[in-house]
């Protein structure tokens, strides 16, 4: 391609679009279904299926630990996986702002291809639109994923039961703080990396090797606190969390202290919450610890019948307080 920037022509459906598809998308997403270039992807799969869609509008587009492309794959793969499915196929749709650098687009597409291969999924259909400069912010990506269910009784936010153990697969808040620091040009002593990664390998093993998993969720926007509040509400149970047990890296902890933010409300893109019967907790922790993506797993709390719909935090001091849902965005404080 001779141009260095995205032109409106690339969304025209004409020759320029063809070139973008064949020289960029086909090359990096390479798979037989996509290569057929029919109007739709022909998929030979058996139900029951899980399906999820998400749009990615992250600013900045490139951040320490990933970019919007890898994130768009990980986010949707994880959403499908959290229902207890094996993600197989992804669609992706791009909305590009006229003038966006082609070299950046290539890096994003390449990262998507790599993320899909690593997660064992194929990107089988897609779409590209170009909008005039100023009508979108650089690049937006939508991905939809489908996968086949691995278990008959699938995990769900409605299945947390009193007595269950609450586990997290690693440290909280890394993605959220990495994005914020990059966006605001803040430099911390230890750089904070996004944890963006695909978790379908971990979820599959939890479901098949440990079994009886009641809830699997990835605490993305709103973080651990908001996600647990949703689960408590859906299941009509109380969740008691032990503040001292929740893993947070020292860099995230000090960055949050500096900005007046709470890591429990910051997004994660490579961590999961697993709620399962107490008797299975040890086995699940052992399984998580054996995998680099779950090496930092911890038991952080218990599901209770008391305080239904609420998350109660036992503080490091031994006091108890409410851990409420996040309202709006977290904003840095004045003094």
């Amino acid at each position: 391609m001779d141009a260095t920037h995205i032109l409106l022509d690339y969304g025209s459906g004409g020759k320029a679009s063809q070139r973008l598809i064949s020289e960029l998308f086909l090359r990096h997403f390479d798979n037989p279904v996509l290569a057929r270039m029919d109007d739709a992807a022909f998929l030979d799969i058996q139900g029951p299926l899980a399906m999820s869609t998400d749009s990615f509008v992250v600013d900045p587009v490139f951040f320490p630990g990933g970019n919007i492309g890898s994130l768009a794959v990980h986010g949707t793969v994880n959403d499908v996986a959290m229902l207890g499915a094996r993600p197989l196929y992804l669609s992706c749709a791009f909305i590009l702002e006229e003038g966006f650098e082609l070299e950046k687009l290539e890096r994003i597409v390449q990262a998507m291809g790599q993320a899909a291969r690593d997660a064992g999924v194929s990107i089988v259909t897609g779409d590209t639109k170009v909008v005039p400069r100023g009508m979108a912010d650089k690049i937006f990506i939508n991905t939809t994923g489908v996968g086949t269910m691995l278990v008959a009784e699938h995990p769900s936010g409605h299945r947390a039961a009193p007595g269950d153990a609450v586990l997290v697969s690693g440290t909280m808040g890394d993605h959220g703080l990495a994005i914020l620091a990059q966006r605001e040009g803040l430099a911390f002593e230890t750089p904070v990396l996004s944890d963006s990664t695909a978790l379908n390998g971990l979820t599959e093993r939890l479901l098949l090797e440990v079994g009886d998993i009641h809830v699997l969720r990835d605490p993305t926007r709103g973080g651990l606190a908001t996600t647990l509040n949703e689960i408590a509400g859906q299941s009509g149970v109380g969740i008691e969390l032990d503040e001292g047990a929740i893993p947070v890296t020292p860099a995230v902890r000090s960055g949050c202290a500096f900005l007046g933010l709470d890591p429990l409300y910051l997004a994660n893109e490579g961590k999961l919450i697993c709620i399962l019967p107490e008797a299975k907790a040890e086995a699940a922790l052992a399984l998580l610890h054996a995998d680099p993506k779950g090496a930092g797993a911890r038991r952080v709390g218990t599901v209770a019948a008391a305080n239904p719909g609420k998350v109660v935090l036992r503080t490091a001091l031994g006091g108890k307080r409410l851990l409420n849902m996040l309202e709006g965005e977290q904003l840095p404080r004045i003094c």
Partner: protein
Amino acid sequence: MSIFDKFSDPELCKAVLDAIHRELDGELRFMEVCGTHTVAIFRSGLRSMLPPGVVHLSGPGCPVCVTHESEVGMYMDLAGRDGVIVATFGDLVRVPGPGGTCLKDAMAQGARVAVVYSPFDALTLARENPQATVVFLGIGFETTAPTVAATLQAARAAGVGNFQVLSFHKLVPPALRALLGDPELNLHALVMPGHVSTIIGLEPYRFIAEDFHLPAAITGFDPLDILQSLLDIVRQRKEGRAEVVNLYRRAVQDLGNPKAVAVMESVFTPADALWRGIGMIPGSGLALRPEYEAFDAQKTLGLTMAEAKPIPGCRCGDVLRGKLTPDRCPLFAKACTPAKPVGPCMVSTEGSCAAYYKYQLEM
């Protein structure tokens, strides 16, 4: 254990807490002046561990909460003016103005509003946007004012003409004097703000002990800091003493930070100021000195302060004066929630209504 972990060490905290339980006889109605303390007390779960005789009240120490309706009205008038970029700290974008709308609404309607982390970022914004006038909303106490002053010094030295400040800074000691003069306020002791004290030191608070005979302790924001300050005031009361003590020596010098004070005084001069829920307090604000007139948004942009009526039903004034706990405001958690705040006490991350809503387990 690092020195910082020590200040939240559960064992050490428990020992102090036990001493408070042992030594407290009767009721202790204490007010913490600073919003950061309010949140620290809730966040650490301390409230649930204090003896039942302890009544905890929050004071006027959240800079967003004390910003007067008329001041909010003035900057809302400014937002959306041609060629103006309003630069502000994050919390302010959600504070509803007299018309019920906030800067977030103004942004959605096209106003240029930039959320910054420091006044220097606002100055940079002015340099990058020479065609626009960047107005920084100067809201905050003695903690914030010196940095704003330093930014103005830099702007003047560099001749940046399109940077302006709308100064609604407020001073803590005059407000405390006004508050303590209220015969209805039934207080036993004060926990003094750590951040403000790093700048002004201990001297400006002497009147609390001398004129009002109340014990007061300057302290930090870790649980152990707060517990030690409570134990100190419990002991002072028991012994019939009233002193202002500095328990935050790792950050606060008794004489404060004279350099920061000098910078602040070279740019600002005390002026009367409006406090939400309290009204006009003489000498409790900071206006720009005549040498900095060219940077004073009120003067250069011809802004006038219109009288704004308090929001109907909002009891923020009573909350700020320690007369009402937030859960007793009729709008609390009903018409007024963090998603749809009626008053600033529900907006600010340091506001006591927001803290009750967010952290209080039983209500």
